[in-house]
């Protein structure tokens, strides 16, 4: 019987072509996002402004818009998108479950709770105000995941099921606590909600420079983990038989993915969907081997979030929609279409 060629086989899966083309696509979308907005910048002007910045001779409003407003915002969206998608790919690989996402172990609920605490109590507790929303979110995200790991571990082992259960339970408790904070101080509720839904409206070079030292090492470690994640897909016992130190690999990868997630969430709020769906879409299109899946997830996560942020700030301009709403509204149908196409290809 003739077998229909799966849709995935129509795309180049080998060699450097997928990475190269994805990189070019990201660069094109990033350039578009810098050019489009309240003030449209023509390609020639954009090039000129970029050159002015590189040579250190900034002048005129175009240069200011490009270098002070749009570029940090686009780079921040790209960094956050790449971090979330990479962390999502790692979580799905470690748990061998396509429904895993970077928030599975409570990083989002922890960050949300930390941010809410600052937003509600900053007026009365000076040290919380000095800490600021991003660092409070970052610290609470890490603390939550650390607590989940501590609750789930049995000696040197980290059983997957207990890990997921502890993550879900602790996450729900913290989400409930956040809801309570919102109800208890209704004047701050809108601020908390819009932080929870994510935004790049306050992106700056300082924010980007604070995030990169955390996100880059985590990303580097995850990008190098392709082979171990591939072997882990055979099951933990088979991986151990092939000489993989399964528990150490799990600890290292979950640690790096959590760091990337916490950095992303503290910079831009809880943006859903990217970490769950981008690695999934990349897997459908380019196959499951992690040597390709990890870098391609990073590139497409960046591209997706830059595009989502462009939509978020332009469709209702001058008002902005939370980018988390756009990722789900735009990404959902796209993903379902991809899924349908893949199923028909079988």
């Amino acid at each position: 019987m003739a077998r229909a060629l799966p849709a995935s086989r129509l795309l180049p899966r080998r060699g450097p072509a997928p990475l190269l083309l994805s990189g070019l696509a990201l660069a094109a979308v990033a350039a578009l996002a810098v050019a489009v907005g309240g003030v449209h910048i023509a390609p020639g002007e954009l090039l000129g402004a970029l050159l002015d910045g590189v040579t250190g001779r900034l002048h005129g409003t175009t240069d200011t818009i490009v270098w002070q407003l749009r570029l940090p915002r686009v780079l921040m969206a790209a960094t956050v998108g790449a971090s979330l998608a990479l962390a999502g790919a790692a979580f799905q690989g470690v748990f061998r479950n396509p429904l895993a996402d970077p928030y599975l172990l409570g990083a989002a609920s922890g960050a949300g709770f930390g941010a809410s605490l600052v937003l509600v109590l900053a007026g009365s507790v000076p040290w919380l105000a000095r800490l600021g929303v991003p660092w409070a979110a970052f610290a609470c995200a890490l603390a939550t995941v650390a607590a989940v790991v501590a609750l789930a571990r049995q000696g040197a082992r980290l059983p997957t099921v207990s890990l997921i259960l502890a993550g879900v339970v602790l996450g729900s408790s913290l989400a409930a606590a956040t809801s309570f904070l919102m109800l208890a101080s209704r004047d701050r509720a809108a601020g908390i909600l819009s932080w929870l839904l994510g935004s790049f409206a306050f992106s700056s070079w300082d924010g980007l420079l604070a995030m990169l030292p955390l996100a880059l090492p985590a990303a580097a470690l995850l990008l190098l983990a392709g082979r171990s994640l591939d072997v882990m897909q055979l099951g933990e016992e088979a991986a151990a038989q092939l000489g993989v130190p399964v528990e150490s690999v799990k600890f290292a990868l979950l640690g790096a993915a959590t760091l990337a997630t916490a950095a992303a969430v503290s910079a831009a709020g809880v943006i859903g969907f990217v970490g769950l769906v981008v690695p999934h879409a990349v897997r459908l299109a380019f196959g499951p081997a992690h040597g390709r899946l990890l870098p391609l997830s990073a590139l497409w996560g960046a591209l997706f979030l830059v595009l989502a942020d462009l939509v978020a700030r332009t469709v209702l301009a001058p008002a902005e929609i939370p980018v988390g709403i756009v990722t789900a509204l735009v990404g959902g149908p796209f993903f379902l279409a991809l899924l349908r196409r893949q199923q028909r290809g079988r």
Partner: protein
Amino acid sequence: MSLEARGVTAGYGGTDVLVGADVAVRPGEMVGIIGPNGAGKSTLLRALTRRLPLRAGHVLLDDRELDRWPRLALARALAVVPQTATLPPGYTVAELVAMGRTPHQGLWRPASREDREAVSWALDHTDTRHLRDRSAEELSGGERQRVVLARALAQRPRMLLLDEPTTHLDLRYQVELLTLTRHEVARGLGALVVLHDLNLAARACDRLAVLSAGRVVAQGTASEVLTAPLVRRVFGEGVEVRPDGERPLVLPRFGGT
């Protein structure tokens, strides 16, 4: 390189499933482990691969305590074909077989020429080369087990452990898989295979070890081990043993006949 269990006791919780077991496999030899359900066959295999801590006794690989082998060196020397292996969907056969090179390649290094040659050799020797671009979920049961064997052979081990590798296969693939394994045994590999089918074990293996209630109750060639009194004692009265040269036939017997 030989693998030897000396007085191995192992178990789960409060019970010892395996008691004082002695089994040895030498290079160029295929040893079959047979015995009824619950006799401790899988437990023995787990003890032999360090997946289960020993409560007493020793497991020696190449005369060296298993616990004293470094992780990667052990994975290079000893390969396992599990009863039902997970073959993650979407990966091609070539990618899956290449995973057998992990203990040689490590987790960071790209594939060397030696790695590629070992994979190519394993594909050829298991008759799976034509499947190399197929993905895991497109394989039949017989093809899957051959791919798992190919992965184990790509490890280039000196000792191969197989846990009921023929369970879901029809007769043709049972014979085929064990023939492929025997082929490597003839070239110096040591193999220990857990089998349910006594006749298959009698014909495929050089020696048999019979496990009953956690103890090794007989060891030797098929004709030495598969005697009527022993087989009845271990498997119950519903069997009949017919001498058939070196390899006796064990047949089921139903009431009255």
